C-alpha cells in the first residue's frame, strides 16, 4: 500500500478556508520558515480513499472477537459516540466562565458520584489521560501523604512479579525503589514474602485484584491490613475491575486509592491506542492531594496534564454507566466472569489453563508443555489465529507463566462466538500436531507476513523520506 506522501501531487488541495478579510501581517524578520513543510497535497477524493484503504487493514472490537487478556475489549456502544460528539460538549472552551459550563460540571459530578459508589472511594479525579497516567497519579497521592506527615523513611513500593510493567515503571517515576515479591504457586500474593519485605521503609503496595492470572486473591483483607499495620498505603490497579464491578468494591478490600481504565471497564473505545482516561479515586484522607489544573481550577496542587482531562472520553463512560445502572453494572461483571469460565471449559482438554480452577474475567493458557511436544510456540498460535479472523489473545504476559496466552472474552460476546472461538483453538491444537511448519510461518492470509522486528530496531526508519 502506498504512503500518503507517495500519492501526493504538488498543487493539489482543497479550499477549506475563505480568503482573508483583513490585512495580512508578515512575521517579524528572522522568524519565517526557510521552506514550506512537505505535508501531503491531496484532493479530498484521494484523501478519503487513502483512509478507506488504510481502514481495511485494521481490526476493531466492533468488527470481530478480540479476546485480549487484561484489555477488556468489550463492545463500544454507538450511543456513547453520539453523546460525545454533541456540539454542546465539543464546542466548550475549558477556560470559559464556570456559569457557562454547568453541563460539563454536571457530567463530572455525576460520574464521580457513581464511580465512587461503585468502587467504595470518597473522591475522584478525571485528569489522568490513560491507565499508566492514572497509576502515576495514584502513587503520587501516596508520596504526598507521607511527605505531608514528614515521614521521609518510606522509600519503597512493593509490587508483585505478576504485575503489569507499568506498575514498577510508575513507582520509579515517583522516586520510589521497587521491591518485587514473588507470587505464590497459585498465582496470588505470597503472604510470607510480603511480610518479609514490609517495614518502616514501606510507602505502599500496588496490587490488582483479581490478579493478572485472573484469580481473586481471597487473602486480600489480610494483605491490605498487613500493609496498613506497617504504615504503608494500598493502591489498586483497576485494570481488572470488569470482573468485580458492582460485586466487590476496592474500597471494601482495604485500598486507599485506585485507578480505573474508562477505556476498558467502562466501554470507551481504544482508538488504536488512545485516547483513554485513567480516573483516580481515593479515600477521604487522600482527597486533598488530588490533582487540579492551575489554569482551570486553582494553583497549589499536583497536576498531571492540562485542564480537566480527556473530557469527551468521560462523557462516553458516563453514558455507559447511566445505561447499565444499578443492576447492569454487576450483571456485566458476572457475565464477564461466566463467559471466561465457559470459554475456558470449552478449550480445556486441548490447551491447558495455567491454573485449573474457576477463573475471574480472564484466564491464562500455559503452552510450555504444548511447545515441548509440537515445537509450536504461543507466538505461532497467535499468528495462526490471525488467519482464522480472530485477534490473538495477549501473549507472554503475565511473566510468571511461560508461553502464556491470556484470554478475556468480556460479557458482550454471545455464546455462538465463544463456541466458535473454542472450536478454532481446538483446530489449532490439532494443526500444531499435524503441520507445525504451517504455524511457524503464519499468518498466511493477512496483509503482510511476519515483520522483521530486528531489522526495524537495528536500522530504524521512523519517517518517510522523499
Amino acid at each position, binding site marked *: 500500500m502506498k504512503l500518503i506522501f507517495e500519492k501526493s501531487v504538488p498543487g493539489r488541495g482543497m479550499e477549506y478556508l475563505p480568503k482573508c*478579510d483583513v490585512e495580512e501581517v508578515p512575521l517579524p524578520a528572522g522568524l519565517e520558515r526557510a521552506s514550506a513543510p512537505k505535508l501531503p*497535497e491531496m484532493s479530498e477524493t484521494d484523501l478519503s480513499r487513502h483512509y478507506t484503504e488504510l481502514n481495511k487493514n485494521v481490526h476493531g472490537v466492533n468488527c470481530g472477537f478480540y479476546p485480549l487478556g487484561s484489555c477488556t475489549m468489550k463492545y463500544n456502544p454507538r450511543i456513547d459516540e453520539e453523546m460525545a460528539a454533541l456540539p454542546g460538549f465539543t464546542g466548550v472552551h475549558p477556560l470559559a466562565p464556570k456559569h457557562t459550563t454547568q453541563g460539563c460540571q454536571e457530567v463530572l459530578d455525576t460520574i464521580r458520584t457513581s464511580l465512587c459508589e461503585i468502587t467504595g472511594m470518597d473522591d475522584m479525579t478525571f485528569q489522568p489521560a490513560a491507565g499508566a497516567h492514572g497509576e502515576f497519579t495514584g502513587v503520587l497521592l501516596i508520596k504526598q501523604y507521607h511527605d505531608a506527615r514528614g515521614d521521609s523513611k518510606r522509600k519503597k513500593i512493593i509490587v508483585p512479579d505478576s504485575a503489569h510493567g507499568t506498575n514498577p515503571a510508575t513507582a520509579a517515576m515517583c522516586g520510589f525503589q521497587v521491591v518485587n515479591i514473588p507470587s505464590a504457586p497459585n498465582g496470588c500474593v505470597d503472604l510470607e514474602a510480603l511480610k518479609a519485605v514490609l517495614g518502616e521503609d514501606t510507602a505502599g503496595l500496588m496490587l490488582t485484584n483479581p490478579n493478572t492470572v485472573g484469580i481473586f486473591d481471597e487473602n486480600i483483607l489480610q494483605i491490605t491490613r498487613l500493609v496498613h499495620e506497617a504504615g504503608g498505603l494500598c493502591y489498586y490497579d483497576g485494570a481488572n475491575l470488569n470482573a468485580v464491578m458492582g460485586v466487590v468494591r476496592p474500597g471494601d478490600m482495604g485500598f486507599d486509592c485506585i485507578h480505573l481504565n474508562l477505556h476498558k471497564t467502562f466501554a470507551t473505545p481504544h482508538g488504536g491506542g488512545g485516547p483513554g482516561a485513567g480516573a483516580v479515586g481515593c479515600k477521604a484522607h487522600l482527597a486533598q492531594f488530588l490533582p487540579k489544573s492551575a489554569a482551570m481550577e486553582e494553583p497549589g496542587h499536583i497536576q498531571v496534564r492540562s*485542564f480537566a482531562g480527556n473530557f469527551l472520553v468521560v462523557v462516553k463512560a458516563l453514558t455507559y454507566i447511566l445505561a447499565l445502572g444499578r443492576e447492569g453494572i454487576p450483571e456485566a461483571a458476572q457475565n464477564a466472569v461466566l463467559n471466561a469460565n465457559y470459554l475456558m471449559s470449552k478449550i480445556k482438554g486441548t490447551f491447558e489453563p495455567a491454573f485449573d480452577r474457576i477463573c475471574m474475567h480472564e484466564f491464562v493458557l500455559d503452552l510450555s508443555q504444548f511447545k515441548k511436544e509440537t515445537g509450536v510456540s504461543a507466538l505461532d498460535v497467535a499468528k495462526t489465529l490471525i488467519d482464522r479472523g480472530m485477534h490473538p489473545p495477549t501473549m507472554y504476559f503475565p511473566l510468571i507463566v511461560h508461553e502464556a496466552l491470556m484470554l478475556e472474552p468480556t460479557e458482550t460476546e454471545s455464546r455462538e462466538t465463544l463456541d466458535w472461538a473454542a472450536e478454532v483453538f481446538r483446530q489449532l491444537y490439532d494443526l500444531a500436531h499435524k503441520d507445525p511448519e504451517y504455524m511457524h510461518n503464519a499468518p498466511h492470509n493477512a496483509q503482510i507476513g511476519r515483520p522483521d522486528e530486528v531489522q526495524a530496531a537495528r536500522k530504524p526508519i521512523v519517517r518517510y523520506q522523499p
Partner: protein
Amino acid sequence: MSNFIPSTQEERLEMLRCVGVSDYRELYRDVPSEMYLDGGLNIPEGMSELEVGRAVSAMAAKNHVFPTVLRGAGAYDHYIPSIVKYIPTKEEFLTAYTPYQAEMSQGILQSIFEYQTCICELTGMDVSNASVYDGATAAAEAAAMCRDRKRTVTLISAAAHPDTINTVRTYCYGTGSELRVIPAKDGKTDLDALKGMLGADVASVYIQQPNFYGQFEDAEAIGEAVHANGSMYIMGCNPVALAIMKTPRDCGADVAVGEGQPLGMPLSYGGPYLGFMATTAKHMRKLPGRIVGQTVDSKGQRAFVLSLQAREQHIRREKASSNICSNQALCALTAGVYMAAMGPEGMAQAAKQSMAKAHYLAAELCKIPGISLKYTGEFFHEFVTVMPKADDVLKALEKANILGGLPIEGGVLWCATEKVSKAELDKAAAIVKEVYAK
C-alpha cells in the same frame, strides 16, 4: 434483556451448568462474604437508549456554546474540515486496540508513520514519537529525557502556560528533580535572568514559542545561551504556527514538543488533546512513548511495526524512563488527516489568517481610549491588553454570544483564529467601545 450482554436467561443457565456451578455466587467463591455485594449498589437504575440520550443531551444543553471564540490560552478554536471529523469515527480505527499484532494492524501503523513524518516536517526534526497525552505532559517527558546523572535541574520559562509549568513541576516532584522558573520581563523570557541561572547542573531549558501571552520569544538567542552551557534546549511550539514559522530545529532546539489540539481537535472542555514530541537522530533512543518504524516482512514487502520497544515499560519495567504505555492514537490520526487535508498551503493560510485577525482585533481594541497592549513585543495570534472594566466588557460580549479574552493578572489575554470573520471582530470591538463610552 440487558444492555450489551447478548446471552439470554436460558443461555446463562446452560453455560453455568457447563462450567459446573449452580449460580453466579459460586463463581465468586474466593470473595469473602463480608465484601460480596448482593445487589444494592446505590446508583440509579439503568436506562433505555432513548432515556440515556435524553439525560446526557440535557447536560450538554446546560452548556453555553459560543459561536464566536476570542479566547485561546492553550485551547484554540480553529476550523476543522468535515473530513477530519469523519475519518476517526470509522469503526475500525475507533475500536481497535494498540497495534501489537502488526499483521492485523498495518492501517493503524501506517497512519501513525505518516503522522510521525508530518510532525518531523513541521518541526524540522528527524524523529517523532506516536504522540503522548498532551502538550503539558510532552514538556514533562522532554525534561525527563534530558536529565542524566550529572545534570538533573530543569529550567522553565515563567511565560509558559501555567498548566505546563504545573505539570512539569509535578513530574519533577515525582523523581525528586529540581525545577527552577526563569522570570519573564515584558511578557517574554528574561534572557539575562536565564543566563544567570545556567549552571553545570542544568539539564535542559524549556520555553514556549509563541508563549502563553502570545509573544514571540528570542528563540535562537536563548538556544545559543543554553548550548553554551552544555544544556539541552526544549521548545514547546504551536503546530499551526509552525506552518509558517522558523522550525525549532533551525532555532537550535534538541527537542520539539507541543500541544497538538489545534490540528483538528475541537475545544472539548479540555480533552482529549495530543502531545507531540520530536527530536534529532542523536537523541532518538531517549524519546519516550511509542514509535512506529518501517521494515520488511517475510515476503520482502514494506511493513510497519512498533519499534525500539526496548525503551519502554513492558521491557524495562522499573528501569524505563517513563511508564507511558499508550499514545493518543485516534487524536494522532485526527492530526494526520488534518495536516494532509489542509496541506502546506492550507495550514499556512490558517496560520497567516489567525495572525492577521488577531492583529486586526488588537488594533481595533487599542483605538478605544483606556485600552492598550500590555507588552511591547511582536505576537502571533494572541495578545494581552491592559483593560480596566474587563468584567463589564466580558459580560457585554457574553450577552452578544461572544467568548471574550481570558482575564489574567494585569489584563485580558485575547486570541483570534482564521475561523473568526471581520464582521465578528468589528462587532466585538463595537461592543467593547460601547462599554467604555458609558
